[in-house]
């Protein structure tokens, strides 16, 4: 359902959208039921002359059932949602599939520095390509990223990937994504980081391997 609003550009986007839909259906049911009961009661038991209110303490067993039964059903729904959430989390955030390439992301006030591995596909070699606010990825490639910050807490957020991870100074957080859709997308900072918080948008470009290689070539021609 989220894909109506934001394109799905990674494998985890699919998983998260699925969970979102599951939750929407479940809580939507409860929402409709509760609102329907509320408004029905409001309408049916409005004050009418000559009709007195009844005396119900809610302490007797048969009365308590009115809330203990929905209560049990809520627990069942909660269990379903918890299982769904934990499995998705494990797949998206906790277990890293084997990496094809690694990139490094360093946040600072107020820019993103991306260290691409270069044509050899390895970080910390001569041909690494560093860019500011410009991330280039190959489609259908599993990336591991190493995220850190130089000064304050930032948050690396790519809505099209459904990816968000805070960049914390003093720690390196690893994560993964696998782009599945060509195009350019927004990268935002999602954690307030000072005056320029709104002004550190970066662009993500997902390219075919050929385009990606050509971009590397153009970078080395510039001497960048």
């Amino acid at each position: 359902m989220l894909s109506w609003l934001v394109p799905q550009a990674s494998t985890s986007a699919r998983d998260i959208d699925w969970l979102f839909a599951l939750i929407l259906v479940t809580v939507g049911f409860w929402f409709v039921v509760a609102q329907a009961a509320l408004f029905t009661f409001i309408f049916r038991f409005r004050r009418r002359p000559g009709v007195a209110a009844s005396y119900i303490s809610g302490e007797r067993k048969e009365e308590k059932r009115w809330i203990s039964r929905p209560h049990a059903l809520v627990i069942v729904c909660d269990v379903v949602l918890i299982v769904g959430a934990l499995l998705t989390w494990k797949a998206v955030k906790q277990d890293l599939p084997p990496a094809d390439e690694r990139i490094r992301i360093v946040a600072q006030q107020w820019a993103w520095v991306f260290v691409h591995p270069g044509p050899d596909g390895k970080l910390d070699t001569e041909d690494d390509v560093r860019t500011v606010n410009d991330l280039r990825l190959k489609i259908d490639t599993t990336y591991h990223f190493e995220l850190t910050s130089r000064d304050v807490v930032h948050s690396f957020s790519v809505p099209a990937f459904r990816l968000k991870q805070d960049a914390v100074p003093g720690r390196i957080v690893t994560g993964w994504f696998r782009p599945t859709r060509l195009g350019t997308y927004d990268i935002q900072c999602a954690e307030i980081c000072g005056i320029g918080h709104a002004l550190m948008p970066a662009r993500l470009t997902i390219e075919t391997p050929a385009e990606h290689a050509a971009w590397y070539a153009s970078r080395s021609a510039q001497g960048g």
Partner: protein
Amino acid sequence: MSGQGTEATSHPNYVKVYLALLVLFAISVVGPLFGHPWLTLVTAFGVAAVKATMVAAYFMHLNIERRYIWYLLFTMVAFMGLLFAGVAPDVLAQGGQNWRHVRPAQPAVGHH
């Protein structure tokens, strides 16, 4: 006299309690001098817990206070244990799944 209904109670011998506390205090200072980590742990912190309990029980009269005051204070300590348990995996640990502590990246441009 107090106007608050403080019931007169039989007092324990405070000087005896005090002397016991002093003995424990001496143990807590001497124990760590041996340098065994576990001995330090027991003598320094185990004895501290005993001393604090004695102060609470005899000097603060918790032994004759209503039971739920114990529960109240214990709940607060338990919440601190909860806080510790929840925070330690991030702050105490050197690293965990998919993250590790590092010295922060310094700005490459030095000005001084």
